[in-house]
């Protein structure tokens, strides 16, 4: 039994320390995390390269690409940010725009408050690195076992792809030897697969349908550029109103 043998090794480790010490980072968890992160790799490299190219076009080179991707680490906001920086926006405009574009991260974090509760020293980084894509991968993972290490590694791999893509884009410019048109669909595919998986794994489909229908309705009402915030408010409102039902069912 390789699994129980591994558990023994971890338990008997002298001075093993906390439950989520580095000693528990076995090869199997690394491999599992890497495989989970592969779908994000293509998307982040491509989107990162696009960001690096655009940022260089606006007059900011590789150090800027590295720093923004490493420390802001929010894809769509960084694309918007190029315009803000190049256009010389005010601090207030920048702060408000970031607040609007990234408000959804509040909701991702709310979903993870319980899940990330016992993640020890990984916790600050897990919270910092919670992007759309990482969130959708980690939502599928139940936790338990070596979950914290797995979450940490997926977050780290994704972060690395994003920074690497941005730096590569800034350095390479537009001299890529092949057409990657359409590879950005890997992001959409990631969310569709995640949505389907959640649908299959859960008996209660009301939350998934609420998300889909509220977003569609808000897209039709408010348009592609402005629907996210109304959609998030509508989803939260509807799910809050349905709370009694959910608890009665479970």
């Amino acid at each position, binding site marked *: 039994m390789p699994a129980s043998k591994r558990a023994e090794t971890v338990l008997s480790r002298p001075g093993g320390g906390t439950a989520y010490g580095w000693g528990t980072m076995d090869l199997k968890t690394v491999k599992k995390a890497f*495989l*989970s992160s*592969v779908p994000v790799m*293509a998307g982040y490299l491509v989107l990162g390269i696009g960001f690096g190219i655009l940022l260089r076009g606006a007059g*900011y080179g590789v150090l*800027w690409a590295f720093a*923004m991707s490493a*420390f*802001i*680490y929010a894809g769509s906001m960084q694309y918007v*940010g190029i315009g803000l*920086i190049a256009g010389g926006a005010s*601090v207030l405009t*920048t702060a408000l725009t970031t*607040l609007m574009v990234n408000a959804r991260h509040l909701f*991702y974090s*709310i*979903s*993870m*408050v319980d*899940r990330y509760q016992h993640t020890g020293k990984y916790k600050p980084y897990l*919270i*910092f690195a919670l992007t759309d894509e990482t*969130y*959708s991968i980690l939502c*599928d993972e139940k936790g338990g076992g070596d979950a914290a290490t797995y979450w940490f590694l997926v977050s780290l791999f994704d972060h690395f792809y994003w920074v690497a893509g941005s730096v590569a884009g800034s350095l390479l410019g537009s001299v890529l030897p092949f057409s990657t*048109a*359409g590879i950005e*669909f890997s992001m*959409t*595919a*990631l*969310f*569709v*697969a995640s949505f389907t998986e*959640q*649908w*299959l794994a859960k008996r209660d*489909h*009301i*939350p*998934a*349908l*609420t*998300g*889909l229908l*509220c*977003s*569609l309705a808000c*897209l039709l009402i408010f348009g*592609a550029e402005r*629907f996210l915030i109304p959609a998030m408010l509508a*989803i*939260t409102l509807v*799910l*809050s109103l*349905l*709370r009694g039902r*959910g*608890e009665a069912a479970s």
Partner: protein
Amino acid sequence: MRAAELAAVMAAVTVLLRFLPFLAFRARTPPYISYLGKVLPPAMIGMLVVYCLKDVRPAHAPYGLPELAAAVCVAGLQIWKRNSLLSILAGTAVYMLLIRCLGFAV
């Protein structure tokens, strides 16, 4: 330097948004937040699916058909094999092929 200042503001606001719920619900998670933590993930992912497809224009050629076909392929494979990596790679390949065959690759 102006640009560095703006980049720092973006980083700070983003970090604040990510950490706020964890700081606010530090001691004990209120039942309402636990409930939201349970029901929000599928809803948010539904929203992200819509967000990814927001610029598809069903009234104009190719009528969103590459996106629709590739998304159906992803969902179908996921139901059949339950392997996210396979679904995503196959769906992306289908999409890249379709936009080339239909002549809409940029």
